[in-house]
């Protein structure tokens, strides 16, 4: 095999790389500074920015080309796979939307709107992907994850507006932001970096062109909770990347085929284990809880696991009936007792009188809606014993629950 570097007509030019990085930083700064506010916003977003990105694309075009590192003969295959992964991504996202929620697209779908958006998004896309390809292929000849990650990080940071970072106030905001925006963006850029490493800028242009095209053109879009967006947004590009690796090296005859199957196994295992942990922790509307006391015997014994359907709004509260078993919080403990009576005070609102089936008398304090966690829908016997063995007796104030 001919070693590529001897025949590379272009030397790695650090200068050109740094000019490129600088230009990207300049565009980002202009975008996020008050300069953007001095010009009419329509003109800025839809005229000036496309001009900037097109200019950047032309500059890179004029640079002496740096070749991607994948085999030329596999280039077409890579284009096809870029398209495949884009379509799979759309399907996964839409599937998540079918479970978690769909919404109407807020984007302009008139002919004029679509054309303007194509110019706006397209110019930025082409400029960025040309830059990405130039940088990745300049900085590494082999699969260098450090380079991939650094450039992915750089592309991520120049993709997210500064205001998003500044507006973070609490830990919750930070975690949500990382989960919903930063990490998925980074994963996507990582995958895109790998695409251009193998097949040049057109691969990522195809991938993003299709995914972004769907995002801007579809009348219905998935409306995911931040955790769902995190799951889909982070895992999809990562799995694509792993899969692409396998596919490419199998085609390049550098690895044997059986590795492909174990990859699928890993992917499935990851997703399933995440979902199991999420269920146990209480991400989903139905969550498990271990029963520690005998206040609800004989129906629910200590060591049983109850499945609780979370109640989050007044509609759920109003749907509760006498005889339902609810889980509520009192003095820091979760108690699951049966509703004996519903009181509807005009001035105080609704409150519930509860009693454990096995208790001799009703619970001393009525339960307010704000303390109710959910309604018990199913009992799984005995599964909770390991948890009870771990928890010490002192953690459970029996006096409040069993009497």
């Amino acid at each position, binding site marked *: 095999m001919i070693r590529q570097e001897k025949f590379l007509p272009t030397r790695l030019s650090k200068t050109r790389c740094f000019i490129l990085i600088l230009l990207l930083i300049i565009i980002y700064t202009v975008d996020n500074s008050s300069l953007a506010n001095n010009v009419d916003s329509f003109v800025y977003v839809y005229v000036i920015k496309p001009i900037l990105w097109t200019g950047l694309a032309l500059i890179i075009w004029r640079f002496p080309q740096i070749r991607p590192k994948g085999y030329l003969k596999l280039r077409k295959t890579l284009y096809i796979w870029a398209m495949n992964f884009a379509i799979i991504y759309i399907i996964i996202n839409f599937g998540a939307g079918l479970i978690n929620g769909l919404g109407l697209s807020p984007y302009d779908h008139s002919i004029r709107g679509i054309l303007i958006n194509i110019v706006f998004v397209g110019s930025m896309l082409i400029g960025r992907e040309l830059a990405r390809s130039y940088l990745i292929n300049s900085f590494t000849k082999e699969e260098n994850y450090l380079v991939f990650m650094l450039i992915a990080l750089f592309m991520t940071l120049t993709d997210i507006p500064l205001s998003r970072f500044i507006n973070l106030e609490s830990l919750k905001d930070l975690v949500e932001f990382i*989960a919903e925006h930063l990490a998925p963006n980074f994963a996507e850029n990582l995958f895109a970096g790998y695409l251009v490493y193998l097949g040049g800028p057109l691969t990522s242009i195809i991938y993003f062109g299709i995914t972004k095209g769907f995002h801007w053109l579809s009348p219905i879009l998935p409306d995911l909770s931040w*955790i769902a967006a995190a799951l889909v947004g982070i895992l999809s590009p990562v799995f694509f990347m792993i899969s692409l690796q396998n596919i490419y090296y199998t085609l390049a005859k550098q690895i044997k085929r059986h590795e492909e199957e174990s990859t699928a196994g890993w992917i499935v295992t990851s997703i399933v284990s*995440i979902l199991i942990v*999420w269920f146990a922790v*209480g991400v989903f509307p139905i969550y498990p809880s271990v029963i520690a006391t005998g206040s609800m015997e004989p129906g629910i014994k200590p060591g049983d696991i109850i499945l609780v359907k979370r109640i989050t709004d*007044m509609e759920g509260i109003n749907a509760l009936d006498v005889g339902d078993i609810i889980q509520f919080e009192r003095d820091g403990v979760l108690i699951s007792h049966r509703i004996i009576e519903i009181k509807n005070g005009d001035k105080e*609102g609704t409150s519930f009188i509860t009693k454990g089936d096995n208790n001799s008398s009703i619970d001393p304090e009525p339960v307010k809606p704000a303390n109710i966690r959910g309604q018990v829908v199913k009992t799984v016997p005995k599964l909770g014993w390991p948890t009870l063995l771990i928890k010490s007796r002192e953690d459970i104030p029996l006096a409040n629950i069993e009497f």
Partner: protein
Amino acid sequence: MKRARFLLLALVVAIMMMGAGYAYWSERIEIKNTVNTGELDVKFTEADVKVDDDYEDLLDKKEEKHRSKGAPWVAKAEVDSKDNKKVVVEVKNMYPGARFTVETKLKNTGTIHAKLTDIEFDFEHGSKDFAKYLILKEIKIGDKTYESDKAVNKVDLSDWEVKLLKTSGLRTNEAENVEGVQPEWGWPWPPKPDPEPQPDPDEDTIDIEYTFEIDRNATENQVKENATYKFSLKAIVRQLNDRGDGRIRFDE
């Protein structure tokens, strides 16, 4: 490849922990208990009309003539059966200078404090002209007296001092700003108030008395002696802290 597996594991664990955070923060969603908003309601509990016996300042011969005829004049007032915010007054055999006083008791039957901001007079068809000759001499609300000397159709009560109608028992935001009931603070200062004073049922009701007089200069055509005139008074109340500009304040 091994490194990739390790990174994947780290990623999976990170995502699991995100889920833990999500579950934790979801638990903190509060259910806003929909408390029934307070009810603003008042009603007249009693209505009566008393004829004015004081004829000492009536020196008008016209009036003497009428008195000598011996025709008794009759007035009655009662709370409207269909709308207990209204009192219907009926008068007969009116003559210029005649006086009568409508006595009413207005009670706050809602769950929030109210203030009386206006009295609406409504004259039945056929009695519409009567408004021009029925003079409102004074209104006594509780222990305050407002004097007027205008015919009812020209009376403007909008610059009254409003009268508070308290509601016994209920503690609401508004209640905290009413004299005698202090809001409870968590700080040691200002000092905690005395325990809530026992509600006074009479506080819910105020007495309103209207003294009317027929215009002494009215002619027989304008005020017909044999005619029956009917009109109603309606109490207009607002929430205590409603200043009429749409904004509710809690600093009264």
